[in-house]
C-alpha cells in the first residue's frame, strides 16, 4: 500500500475551511501543499500522519498583489510560477533566480514558496532571497492574522515561528527599488541539487558608496542567516577592491558551518566569503 493511501487527506475549498480543520492542531507537517518535501520525508521513514489537510490550490494562497511598498505573494504560489513571472522578476530578481534553481522543472511545478519556507531546511533555496527583502510572513489561524518579520521566522534548525494551527498565507516582500539583487547557489550538480552554500543579496550603491546592504546565506548554519556584521561593515563605505577583500574575509570569519555529506566545513566557510565577494563584484 502506498503512503498516501493510508493518510486521510482533506481538501478544503477555502482558507476559512482549512483554518477550521487546522484548529487545535498540535503537530506540524499535516498541511500538505505540493508535497515535494513531505512525500519524500514520509517515504524516508518520518512517521506519516493519519490525517492531513491539503492547501494545494487554495485560492487565498494563490494570489499575487503588487503594491508599491510590498509585493504580496501567496504561500501556495509555485516555483514554476515565480520562475516565469516577469513582473515579479523586475522587483524581486533574487527570489525568481532562487525559484528557478529549485530541483528541476517537475519539482518547480509542484513545490510552493510556502512549503519551502515552512519546511525550514537551512538549504531551502528561496530563504536567503526572502531574507534580503526585509519582508515578512503572513500567518493566519482561527484566532486571526499576524505578521512575522522573515529574519525572525526561522528560529532554529527546522523550527519556525508558526504554530501548528497556523497557515502561512503569504509573504509580504518590499521590492528592491534601485538596489541590486544577486543570487548564487553552489550546488552538488547543475540541477536537482541541494546547495553546498548559497547567497542572496540586495545592495544599494549611490555615487560609489554603499547605502544599504542585505546579505543572506543558506546551508552554513542551522537556519538561513543574514550576515549582519558584514552588512554593518559595508554600509556607508566606498566600494573598492580592498573593501571587497575585507568583506570576504569578514564573512569567512563570521560563519561557522558544519561538514556533512554535501560539503566540508572549510569549503563552506571559504565559499561564504567568495559569494559575498561575488555579490559586491556585481554591483
Amino acid at each position, binding site marked *: 500500500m502506498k503512503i498516501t493511501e493510508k493518510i486521510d487527506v482533506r481538501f478544503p475549498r477555502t482558507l476559512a475551511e482549512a483554518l477550521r480543520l487546522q484548529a487545535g492542531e498540535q503537530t506540524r507537517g499535516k498541511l500538505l501543499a505540493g508535497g515535494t518535501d513531505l512525500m519524500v520525508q514520509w517515504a524516508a521513514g518520518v512517521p506519516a500522519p493519519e490525517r492531513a489537510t491539503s492547501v494545494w490550490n487554495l485560492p487565498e494562497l494563490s494570489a499575487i498583489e503588487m503594491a508599491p511598498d510590498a509585493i504580496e505573494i501567496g504561500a501556495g504560489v509555485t516555483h514554476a510560477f515565480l520562475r516565469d513571472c516577469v513582473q515579479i522578476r523586475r522587483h524581486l530578481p533574487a527570489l525568481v533566480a532562487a525559484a528557478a534553481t529549485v530541483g528541476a522543472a517537475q519539482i518547480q511545478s509542484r513545490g510552493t514558496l510556502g512549503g519551502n519556507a515552512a519546511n525550514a531546511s537551512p538549504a531551502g533555496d528561496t530563504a536567503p532571497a526572502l531574507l534580503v527583502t526585509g519582508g515578512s510572513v503572513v500567518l493566519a489561524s482561527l484566532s486571526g492574522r499576524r505578521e512575522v518579520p522573515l529574519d525572525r521566522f526561522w528560529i532554529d534548525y527546522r523550527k519556525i515561528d508558526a504554530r501548528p494551527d497556523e497557515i502561512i498565507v503569504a509573504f509580504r516582500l518590499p521590492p528592491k527599488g534601485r538596489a541590486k539583487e544577486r543570487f548564487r547557489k553552489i550546488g552538488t550538480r547543475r*540541477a536537482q541539487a541541494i546547495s553546498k552554500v548559497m547567497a542572496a543579496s540586495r545592495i544599494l550603491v549611490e555615487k560609489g558608496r554603499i547605502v544599504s546592504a542585505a546579505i543572506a546565506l543558506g546551508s552554513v548554519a542551522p537556519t538561513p542567516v543574514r550576515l549582519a556584521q558584514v552588512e554593518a561593515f559595508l554600509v556607508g563605505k566606498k566600494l573598492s577592491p580592498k573593501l571587497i577583500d575585507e568583506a570576504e574575509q569578514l564573512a569567512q570569519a563570521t560563519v561557522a558551518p558544519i561538514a556533512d555529506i554535501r560539503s566540508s566545513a*572549510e569549503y563552506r566557510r571559504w*565559499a561564504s566569503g567568495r559569494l559575498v565577494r561575488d555579490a559586491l563584484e556585481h554591483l
Partner: protein
Amino acid sequence: MTKRTSKPVRLIGKGMPRVDADGKVRGTTRYLNDIDYKGIWHGVVVRSPVPRGILRAIVPGPAFAGDNLVLATAKDIPGENVVHMHDRTMPLLAEIGGEIRYRGEPVAVVAAATPEQAAAAARDVRIEVDELPPLLTLDEAVAIFKSAPGKLDTMKEQTIVKGDLAQGFTAADDVVEAEYWAGHQEQLYLENQGLVVFPQKDGSILSEGSIQCPYFPVHELNDPLKLPPEKIRVRQTPIGGAFGGKEDYPTMLTGYAALPALKSGKPVKITYERNEDILFTPKRHPVWVRFKTGFKKDGTLTAIECDYILDGGAYLTISDVVMYRGILHCALAYRCDNVVIRGKVARTNSFPCGAFRGFGAPQAIWGIESHMDAIAARLGKTPHEYRLQVHARPGDVTPTGQTLSDENGSTACLKLALKRSDFARKLRQASRGKLRKGQKKFVGVGLSFFAHGSAFTGDGEAKFKAKGRVELARLEDGKPGINIRVSSTEMGQGVHTIFTQIAADALSLDAARIRFPMADTGLVPNSGPTVASRTTMVVGNVVYRAALDLKNQIESFAALRFFKGAPAELRGSRLLSKGARPVSFETAAKAMLAEIGSASGFFEFLLPADIRWDQATFKGDSYPGYSWSANVAEIEIDPLTCELEVKRVTAIVDIGRVINPVTATGQVEGGLTQALGYAVMEKIGTGKNGLYDAARLQTYIIPTALDVPEYDVKFVEYPYSFAPPGAKGLGELPMDGLAPAIANAIEAAIGRRLRQIPLTPEAIFAALHPAQGGTP
C-alpha cells in the same frame, strides 16, 4: 514474379533501431514489479545491526505468533551454509556463534503474505551480537600495509612480473612515484534489485527476476540449497539497467528468497526499495594504487612498479577477478621492459564490493593515466607527445608477455583524438593557475589513453566454451522464423538488437523474422554471463556461426525438397537455385518444420589454438583482444567557487567492427556520463557505523542531463578477425578513462594535481588554498 536477384541482407554496420524500443518507449514492457504474481509471499532480509561481532541469538518477537508467516535462519539451509562465489567462504546467512563481518550481513529472512506483514515481522526480530572492533575502510587497510605490510588481511594476491625491475631502475635517469585513490561507486540502475523464487513440486526452484547472469545462481547455490544445477532454473525478466550490479548479487538474493520459499512452499518475492538497494548491495571497489616509474632522459620507460590494493569488503565474492583485471590494466598501454605489478584484495568490515562496469580497470587507469602526465611534466614534455612516444602498438609486448597483433588501433585512437579536439593548441592556452586578461575562468584540457581487454581474462573463454543455438521455430504469428537461444541478457545495452542484426546477416534473412526471447536457463545453452565486454565479441560470434550452421541445414533441405538436389542459397529471405524459381523462406521453413520437426544451428566458442595463458605466473595472452580509446576532456574552473564544469569530451574508440553505430555511440556516451559521475561527484563511503554514508538519491549524486558535456564520439575499426563479425569489447571501455582526463585537465587549468576521485570543488579548493585547508 520479378526477375531481379535477391539482395543479401546487410544489417551489420547499420543503425538499426532497437528491437526492444517500442515497449520501453511506450511503457508496455513489464518489469518484475509490473507483473502481478498471484499468491506470492514477500520476503524481507533481516540484517546485522553492527559491522562486526559474534552472533549470539536471533529472537523472533510476538509478530511471529500469527499464520502466513515464516522465518528462515541458517538452520533452514538444506545443505552447507556457503555461497560458492570464488572461494566458498561467505555464508548464505550468518550462523549463531559465527562471526558477523559487515553491517547489514543477512542473518535471517522473513516472508509473509503481504509486504507490510513481512516488514513488521522483520522489525520484530532481535539480533544479539557480541560486538568486536571493525576495520571499516581502505584508508585503514592501506595505513596497515604501509606500516606493516604483513599485517594486512589479504584475501587474494597476484603479481605480474616482466623483465628485471631492479635493472630497470638502475637504467633510469629519473624516478616518479605517486599514489592515487578511488572510492566506491554505486551502479544506480533505474530498476532496483528484485526476483521471485518459486518452489516446484519436485523440490527444484525457479528464480525469475532482474538477473544479469542467469547461469550464476544455477551454479553457485548447489551446496547451500542441496540442488544440482538442473534443479535451479533461472528466468530473466526485462532488466532496467544493471551495470554489473546484477551480476553477482542476484545469486545471493536467489538464495535469500529460496530459504523461506522452500520452508513455506510458497513463492517468495524480494524487491528492494532504493534506500535498501543502495545500502545493501555491492559497489565498485575502492582502490589505492601506487606507481613508481623509472625512465631515461629521452622518456623511455625503463621500470614500472605498481601496488594495487582493492577493498574487497568482508568477503572475497568475486573480488579476485576484479583485482586481476585491475592489475592487467595498470601498465597495459605503454612500452616498458621491466614491470612488477602487485595486486591485493584487502579485507575490511564493509559491504562486499562487486561487479561494476570496468571491473577494476577504471581504478587502474585512473592511476596510470594521472601518473603518465606526471612523468611527462617531469621530463618537460607535453602529455600528448609523451604518449605518442611511449604508447603500446602492434608488435609491442604487454606486461604478461603478450605480443599485440596489428588488430590494435591504439595509435589511430590517440592521433585522431588529438586532432579532433585540437589538443595541442588548447593545451598551450590552458590557464595553469593564471587568468588571462578578460578571462573569468581557469581553462584546461586533459588527455587519457587506454585499452580494455575484451572477454574473460586469460584462458577463461577457452575453458568456458560459450555455447549458443539459433533455431527454426514457429513464431507468435504462426509463421516460421528464428529464435536466438543464448544466455546473454538485454539490460539496455542493445544486445537483442545487435544479435538480431548478426543473425539476420548470417542467415540473409529479414530481421522481422528473428526473435530473441528472454534468457531462461531451462531453454538456452550457457553462452556465459553478460559481463567482461565479451558478449558482442564472443557470443556474437557464437550466434553468427550457429546461424550459418542453420543456414546450411535450411539450404540442404531446400536443395532436396525444392530443387532436385541442385545447390540452393538462402539470400534476401529467399532460397535461390540456378535456373529455378526462387522459393520463399516461409515456404521452405514451413516444409522443413512440417517434415523434420525442428532444426537448429549450434556453435561452441573456441579460442585460437596458439593462445597461451599461465594462471599461476600470470604470463601469456591475458585477453583474446583489446579495445582502445583516447579521451580528451575540456574543462573550466570558476576561481570564485572552485566549481568545475566539463565542457566537452572527445572519445575515439577502437572496438573492432561496429555492429550498430547508433547503439554503440549510445554505449559510449552513456558510459562517459557514468564515468563523469565517478570522476567529479559520486561519493559514497563506509561510515563509522558501518553503513554507506549516502543512502538516498538526495545524497548520492549522479549527473543530470544538465551536467552532461558535449560529446564527440568517433570509431576507428580494427576488427578482431578470428571471431566474425569481428567486434571487440565495448561495454566497459567508456567507463575507464574520463576521470584521469579530467584530473589532467584540472592540472592544466590550475597547476595542481589531484590524486583522489571524485574531483569535487572541495578538493580543488583544498589544492588551491591549502592555508584555508580542509579535507576534500
